[in-house]
């Protein structure tokens, strides 16, 4: 469960460059729900994700993940509750470590890390099994360095990493944006499978309206640091990309000039 209560985030407070990135956002996401987030550049998508992940601390308001108040917790202190896949495949994993070492890191996310060998025979077997489920042939390359993998392969491994230890929420940060269309589709299918199999509470930020409507149970649109659209259920089922654009125009009374919003 995620509960954001009156979240305000202001960057560069008191300077000429002061920018209010989030203006009193309220958002409750039920357990096991899959929410997609869209919005143009500068709408506050990344800030919203950062507030949940811990990279950005809210200036005002309260952030609850599960039953824990994480408002003032650092990224590492709340990592046990939050699994995350980054937009840049290079950010989500360690290029200089092997595939199995990356998995070993993720398997202890948010837990104490002791002096036991990171890769015992039982863990190796578990990691192999989980990687072979991807059907990418990576199970035979477990000792290969992560930076030998393609961007798509790295994202696939990142997804596996995000599910190796328990968490309250899964954050997906435009995680297919850096991939070619074929690989992006593969990663989205994989995401869908992982999320429904594990009934994860998921928040996916995406650049694509198509993706936002095709996946998940609920779609919200951010603009200027506020939630301007929040649809789910039947009203969402009938929604088309064109409707989204029309709605967007109507609610803001502005013309849409951001091409990035129209991709897909």
């Amino acid at each position, binding site marked *: 469960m995620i509960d954001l209560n009156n979240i305000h985030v202001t960057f560069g407070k008191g300077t000429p460059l002061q920018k209010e990135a989030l203006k009193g956002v309220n958002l409750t996401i039920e357990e096991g729900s899959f929410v997609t987030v869209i919005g143009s550049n500068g709408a506050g998508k990344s800030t919203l994700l950062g507030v949940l992940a811990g990279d950005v601390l809210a200036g005002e308001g309260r952030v609850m993940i599960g039953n824990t108040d994480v408002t003032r917790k650092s990224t590492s202190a709340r990592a046990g509750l939050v699994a995350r896949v980054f937009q840049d495949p290079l*950010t*989500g994993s360690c290029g*200089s*470590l092997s595939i199995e070492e990356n998995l070993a890191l993720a398997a*202890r*996310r948010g837990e104490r890390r*002791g002096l036991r*060998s990171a890769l015992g025979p039982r863990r190796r077997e578990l990691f192999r099994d989980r990687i072979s489920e991807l059907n990418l042939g990576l199970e035979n390359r477990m000792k290969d360095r992560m930076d030998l993998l393609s961007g798509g392969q790295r994202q696939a491994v990142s997804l596996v990493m995000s599910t190796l230890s328990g968490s309250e929420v899964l954050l997906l940060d435009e995680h297919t944006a850096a991939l070619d269309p074929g690989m992006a589709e593969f990663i989205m299918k994989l995401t869908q499978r992982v999320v429904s199999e594990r009934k994860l509470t998921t928040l996916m930020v995406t650049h694509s309206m198509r993706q936002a409507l095709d996946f998940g149970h609920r779609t919200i649109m951010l603009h200027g640091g506020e939630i301007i659209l929040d649809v789910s259920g039947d009203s969402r089922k009938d929604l088309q990309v064109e409707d989204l654009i029309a709605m967007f125009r109507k609610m803001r009374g502005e013309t849409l000039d951001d091409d990035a919003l129209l991709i897909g």
Partner: protein
Amino acid sequence: MLSQIAFWGAVELGLVFAFVAIGVFLAFRVLDFPDLTVDGSFPLGAAVAAVLITIGINPWIAAAAAMLAGGAAGTVTAFLNVRFRILNLLASILTMIALFSVNLRVMGKPNVALINADTMLSPFFGLGLREVYVRPLFVGVLVVIAVIAVWRFLESDAGLAMRATGANPRMSRAQGIDTSWQVYLGLALSNALVALGGALFAQTNGFADVTAGVGTIVVGLAAVIIGETLFGARGILLALIGCVVGSILYRIAIQVALSTDALGLKASDLNLVTAVLVAVALVLPRLRRGASS
């Protein structure tokens, strides 16, 4: 060519500096933290051990105290960098400079002699083996223990967290790793090993000197780079063995250069020779890559 004694002397010195090389490897390669503190923590280890031994403390305890002092020095550098965001290189230079004064305070004078004092090696001298062999053998055993300990650590969950911190801090934090704590831990560990090298240097050479630290970082780095040139990037254990082999080869190369009359080098040319060797070791892999591509 080298005499037997000169050869084994070089091996012994190489083994002593293997601790420095492993420490430098931890800071530079694992944590990606260019740490010059070692130029101060090496003589600090020597000073602490020498002073404690001269007042009658057990030399093993003296070496342990030297490691603690080195660890503290590393913690200061980490503190300056993590807490006050001072650039890593500069933070370590500040600690290094400060340690020069600290070392003089610890010793009370520029150098302390350990001529007749009992050292960690004393019990092994009476066993029939010649001293020239006992010394490298003794230090060698300690080096093997250190290599195995550091290797097992770096392949544990805790060590993996440290490697991840150096490789990708953003990802590490997302995995719940407190990267600030890792910098503290890594620099403390690194400088404790370097100080142990200093303590062994004092005991094998019979003195501690406040100037003994000058260029320690370059020597350590030279060993790491020679090791990498020889073994490549093929796992932690080979990298650590590379540090040890690199350190020994470096000392032998220096010894050969200095004792080859045709070159006409003097002991005072040591730093120049070192700099040239490190530069060559740095350039060689690049030239090789250039040739193959």
